């Protein structure tokens, strides 16, 4: 029993929450269409969180995430307004983000500067660049319909956004759990010095993690723009803490203390379900915050107390 709680506490929490809401509001929450809709609503958060998972696999933080989301959203619109064709614009945005990520990763790995402060500084810089690009204004107009379709409508009954999430999640899962790169990243995260002495090259591998995270954040920025049809220079602000909450929930979910993709998905799902369910039940914002906070605490505590006596 306890071992069950230990392993699947967080997952169980998610299921319990879903069941709870379904009972409370069968007509609105419990419907297939709403559950599908939730997968769509959690997509943006989940993709950012998956990026964070990559960086946390090497034992680092990336606080420039939020700034990169805003950056991606703004830059793509700026390029559109400059008449750049959509595919090119998207590539340019991803490329730009990759450069920022590479710089962060290089500084962290090569000079062993704490990633917390490095990415804090990078985030500030990226934020400045974003404001400069947009001169601080919310941008709309000139967004090609084709681009907007990246984040709206359904394909075979599944929302396009959900498909993005599936794609990114599978990709990240393969990278972390099936490919050599993943082994190296986890080795660095587990014991950087031992990994180095065993021949794992710290700098390029760490850079990979940061580049991946940066590109996913920028992707989310573009999807957000496609979703709401406009870009706000601080639009990504809300993602940072929520994304890390998802990752940490995920770390308590499956593998002890290791950021992992399935766990991150569960974490993001919990956050999304709570938001959706409480809104449908007509719970006001501040109550929603209090309840969300309590649920996160409960999830990690259940997991922990499940582990009591198992030392660590």
């Amino acid at each position, binding site marked *: 029993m306890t071992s069950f709680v230990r392993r699947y506490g967080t997952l169980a929490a998610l299921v319990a929450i879903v069941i709870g809401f379904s009972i409370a509001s069968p007509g609105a929450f419990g419907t297939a269409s709403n559950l599908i809709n939730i997968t769509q609503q959690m997509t943006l958060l989940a993709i950012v969180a998956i990026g964070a998972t990559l960086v946390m696999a090497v034992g680092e933080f990336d606080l420039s995430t939020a700034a990169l989301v805003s950056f991606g959203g703004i830059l793509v619109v700026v390029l559109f307004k400059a008449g750049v064709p959509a595919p090119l614009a998207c590539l340019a945005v991803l490329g730009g983000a990759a450069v920022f990520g590479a710089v962060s990763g290089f500084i962290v790995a090569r000079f062993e500067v704490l990633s917390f402060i490095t990415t804090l500084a990078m985030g500030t810089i990226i934020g400045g660049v974003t404001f400069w690009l947009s001169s601080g204004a919310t941008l709309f107009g000139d967004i090609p319909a084709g681009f907007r379709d990246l984040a709206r409508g359904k394909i075979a009954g599944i929302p396009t956004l959900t498909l993005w999430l599936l794609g990114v999640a599978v990709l990240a899962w393969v990278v972390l759990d099936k490919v050599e790169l993943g082994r190296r990243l986890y080795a660095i995260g587990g014991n950087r010095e031992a990994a180095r002495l065993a*021949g794992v090259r710290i700098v390029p591998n760490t850079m990979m993690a940061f580049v991946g995270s940066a590109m996913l954040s920028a992707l989310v920025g573009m999807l957000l723009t496609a979703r709401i049809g406009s870009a706000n220079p601080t639009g990504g602000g809300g993602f940072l803490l929520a994304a890390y909450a998802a990752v940490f929930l995920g770390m308590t979910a499956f593998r002890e203390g290791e950021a992992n993709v399935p766990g991150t998905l569960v974490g993001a799902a919990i956050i999304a379900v709570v938001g959706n369910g409480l809104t449908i039940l007509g719970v006001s914002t501040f109550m929603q915050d209090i309840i969300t906070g309590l649920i996160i605490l409960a999830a990690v505590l259940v997991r922990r107390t499940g582990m009591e006596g198992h030392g660590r």
Partner: protein
Amino acid sequence: MSDADPAEGTPPFLELRGLKKHFGGVRALDGAELTLRTGSVHSIVGENGAGKSTLIKTLSGLLVPSAGEIRIDGTPVTIAGVNQAEALGFRFIHQELSLVPHFTAVENAFVGRPYPRRGGFIDWAAMRRRVAAAAGDIAPDLPLDRPVGQMTTGQKQLVEIIRALVGQPPRLVVMDEPTASLSDGEAARLHAAVERLSRTGVAVLYISHRLDEVMAICDSYTVLRNGCTVGAGRIAEIDRAGLVQLMSGRAEMRGQAQPPAPGSPTVLRLRDVPFGAQKRPVSFDIRAGEVLGLYGLVGAGRSSLLKLIWGARSHAGGEISLDGTSLRPGRITDRIAAGAAYVPEDRRHEGLIVSRSIADNLAISDLRQVRRAKGLPLTSRGRMAARAEDVRKALSVKMDAPWNGPLTLSGGNQQKLLFGRWLGTPMRVLILDEPTRGVDVGAKAEIHQLVQRFAADGAAVLMTTSDLDELMALSSRVLVMASGEITADLDGDALMPARVIDAAFQQGQRTTPKEPSV
């Protein structure tokens, strides 16, 4: 066995009766017995996993025994917590070094202890005075004001020992492998300190895998096997072989140094590699099948030199070449590609990735071996498990599932994993830093055989060890270092313990004010 005690008649100060401690299925302690009198230096010996550390932890209040009782001066006590043990006058030097890296030796000595105060504020001067006093006995030249994070393993160990001696006078000092990372010179100082302690009526529990020192400084012993006491008595009445017999149930195997076949080619070559504070040039060759020992006092620079050869530290100028091809400074991957292997000094922090599985730890240095298919960077769990199984067979590692964490293994077996990492690729050079630290006699012998096997297969072996017996047993040639310089190159008849020690102190005297009592 009461007649086995030095102070005849006096009631035993500490008695352990039928002590049991089970972790799930594992019977760490299974009816351990121990009798200890004041002023006695009592050794606990046993193989890895015999239960020594667990027994200690029950005394320190870190673990509560599942059964059995602890008597102090004849009255049963339950030791509930660390502070109670401290109050009882018990001091501990635990096996896993437990120091605060940012703190200096002085600060570390007072963690968890009442600080000397002046006007409500901490009195740093008084702290330093007390620590310096305690340090004077065993490590006069230890840098008391350097963060321990920047000290070598050996220096850290000394800080632990000093910490145990500071503060209220102890009744019992427990040392769990205190000399594991000390070279003989350093160990000698410790032994002197232990004698001084016991003369002041302090009881000492001394855990060590180095039987020579057990025979030298202890007056009585208890042997643990699989968690229970299989023998106890006076050192005077038993010999080394007898102890080994008790511990392992079999006789001790000891390696014999094999000089390389005449005319075997040079594999590793160093030429004028600048090293040490004065950047003195270091040059030497190792031939195929040769085991070259590297000896020195704590902080002599052995580990640093090995790291430099391995490419973990860079160097400007000079040349290191393997089989004739020169290696770029600071490129570990070059070494690996050329068939070099390295087993670090600090198993826990430089060797194992404790958050990953045994299989991962074995695969990480060459993931190509466990690919699903050639050319694809896809890792196959099946192949990883298979590789772990191969290593288990080849090195007779005691482990169950390859997906468990490495810390579920005992010290000796953890060490074998670090060797296993390099299996499967043709090995040209094997660099070993303290390969048998904290490893029991049984496992030690197996590791010695391993080293000789690799050498026999034509690898050049470069090994540091602080254990003279081991040095003599394995190496056909010995380089001695003192404060970053090679002070002797001994082989053949010239290779004698006396000359090794002598060379180790040659340079040392400049830095060491006081000639330690060897």
